């Protein structure tokens, strides 16, 4: 597959007290899977190229040799069967981690995700439990063309019955994937393909992170910036730029899109009275629309300026690199939006 575009967060750790190891997002996810499989033999992996190939994005490298073909199951190219079979296995008490090679192929399994996984428990009066995780990378920026570059996270977050998680740091990825695997609900665990190389500190000891808590990623007093996943990286760069001009941005990392934890967002907003929401997906009917609406509902009296949204241009992503970059939200777009609300 394509080589990964290096990201700017790949800078080496500073020499200051290095208490925690700095590992990549890929390693963090891989560790979470490995440790959970060691911990619970009901956990198994299935998906395209997860075994012999070692994972399209090398997340499950070495798993096949260690855990064997029973627990690391290569599947045919059959997304509906992958998700459908994961649901069935989960109903019997196993804990499948089904990998969809990219989130774009989730559309080939849409019925099983939204009509079956999201609804069976409710529809049968709580008789069924579906402890499954759908791990899938998404996102644009790698010149893969319109069908292979999407960030359709909001679509999945639309459906009650699913939980949607999209971490932006290695620490969160590891802790949240562990929680997801231990959870008794169907979870879409959305990774961003251009974040796999990003390094961050990860605790050495065992830990988990809840699936319903947003987090202040960077404290600030002037503007509340709400974002998640890949856009956490771009927003952080923007915040660093803005800090040079004395503008202090408070970044709230949503981490989960469903359930959506508005508490830290509203608390921050009540302090700053201004908000920008940054997402990689399209603006229309997106995460920004949802979050800004909830801010208006929950903190209308605190609004000092119309909330701004930064999102992808409303076009299918083109192959050409310049056009693709034009369509994706950039650091400058974030800076501009922050200045707009000030």
């Amino acid at each position, binding site marked *: *597959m*394509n*080589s990964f575009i290096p990201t700017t967060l790949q800078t080496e750790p500073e020499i200051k007290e290095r208490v925690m190891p700095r590992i990549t997002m890929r390693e963090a996810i891989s560790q979470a899977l490995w440790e959970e499989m060691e911990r619970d033999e009901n956990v198994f992996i299935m998906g*395209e*190229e997860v075994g*012999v*190939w*070692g994972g*399209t994005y090398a997340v499950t490298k070495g798993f096949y040799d260690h855990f064997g073909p029973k627990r690391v199951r*290569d*599947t*045919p*190219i*059959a*997304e*509906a*069967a992958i998700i459908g079979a994961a649901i069935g296995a989960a109903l019997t008490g196993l804990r499948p981690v089904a990998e969809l090679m990219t989130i*774009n*192929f989730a*559309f*080939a399994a849409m019925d099983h995700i939204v009509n079956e996984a999201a609804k069976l428990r409710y529809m049968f009066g709580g008789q069924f439990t579906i402890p499954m995780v759908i791990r899938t990378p998404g996102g644009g920026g*790698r*010149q*893969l*063309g*319109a*069908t*292979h570059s999407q960030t359709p996270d909001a679509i999945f977050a639309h459906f009650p019955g699913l939980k949607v998680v999209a971490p932006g740091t290695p620490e969160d990825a590891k802790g949240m994937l562990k929680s997801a695997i231990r959870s008794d609900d169907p979870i879409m665990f959305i990774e961003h393909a251009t974040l796999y190389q990003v390094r961050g500190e990860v605790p050495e000891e065992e830990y988990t992170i809840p699936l319903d808590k947003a987090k202040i990623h960077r404290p600030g007093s002037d503007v509340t910036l709400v974002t998640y996943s890949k856009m956490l990286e771009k927003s952080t760069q923007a915040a660093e730029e803005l800090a040079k001009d004395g503008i202090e941005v408070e970044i709230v990392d949503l981490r989960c899109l469903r359930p959506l934890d508005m508490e830290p967002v509203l608390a921050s907003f009540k302090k700053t009275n201004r908000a920008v929401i940054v997402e990689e997906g399209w603006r229309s009917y997106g995460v920004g629309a949802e979050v800004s609406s909830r801010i208006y509902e929950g903190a209308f009296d605190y609004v000092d300026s119309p909330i701004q949204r930064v999102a992808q*241009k*409303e*076009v*299918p992503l*083109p*192959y*050409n*690199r*310049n*056009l693709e970059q*034009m*369509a994706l939200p950039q650091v400058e777009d974030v800076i501009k939006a922050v200045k707009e609300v000030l």
Partner: protein
Amino acid sequence: MDKNEYLDIYHQMVLIRRVEERAAELYQQGKIGGFLHLYIGQEAVSTGLISARKPQDPVITAYRDHGVAINVGISAKQVMAELLGKATGISKGKGGSMHMADADKNYWGGHAVVGAHLPIAAGLALGDQYRSTDGVTICMFGDGATNIGFFHEAVNLSKVWNLPVLWVTENNKYGMGTSIERASAVSEIRQKAEGYGITNARVDGMNVIEVRQAAEEYLEHVRSGNGPFFLEAVTYRYRGHSMGDPERYRQKDEIEKWQQEDPIGIFRTFLLKEKIAASEELDEVEEQVEVETQEAIEFAEASPEPAPEELFTHIYAD
């Protein structure tokens, strides 16, 4: 076939090979981005098929589409320019390697979601059936694609509606790193057509003459109103799935064995043995291809990037 047609087929196969070999170099230099799935090793399949096609026959394939693009007559320049994402590319730089199409040539493109184009092929065939025109849709897809639901729905529909479509599976033994034995209940893909009551055959996909003859026969079969036909072309991809494939899933000697059966080598030997062409003539074709490929690269490199406004064009027709 007359001599010119033989030489034309040879020209197309060598052109596909050289364009792709050079494209691989350009990819390494960072001039091509995204995915690049090379057709090298499989040239006889699409060249043989398309050479038997009539202009009214719609063609559609998957993302491994540079060969088909050249066979239907898209110029090496337009292919190269698309690979470089230039405004002069066949899809104006918006599609890239996986998405080349030419509506004027009744070629409906490369499609990147595995199996997604099969139902579309059924619809293309429906178009001809509906208007009582005599086109036969040629739909190509990998062995791996026969494991997804789209395949089964489309193939079944084609039989139920008696659609004029020639289904062609390019069985190159692998879908990415998964061998056919590990992914498909049957390794002889044509058996899947049996389940839908569709007449079928298997052909040596390394031999362009055999593919050509099969295509002539079965296109005629479909054109005469006999409903869909299912052809399995047995072939092999010499390169990785896309660029940067670690290829841990197969052994070198397996690749080397198949390289003994190089479709271009087989055809060259045939042309010489049958005294259809002299080796100097074939060398000349290869030299032409060298020039054509070089010109294509120069054209692509000199071509402009798409204008920024192009980001917002072609979203809707109205």
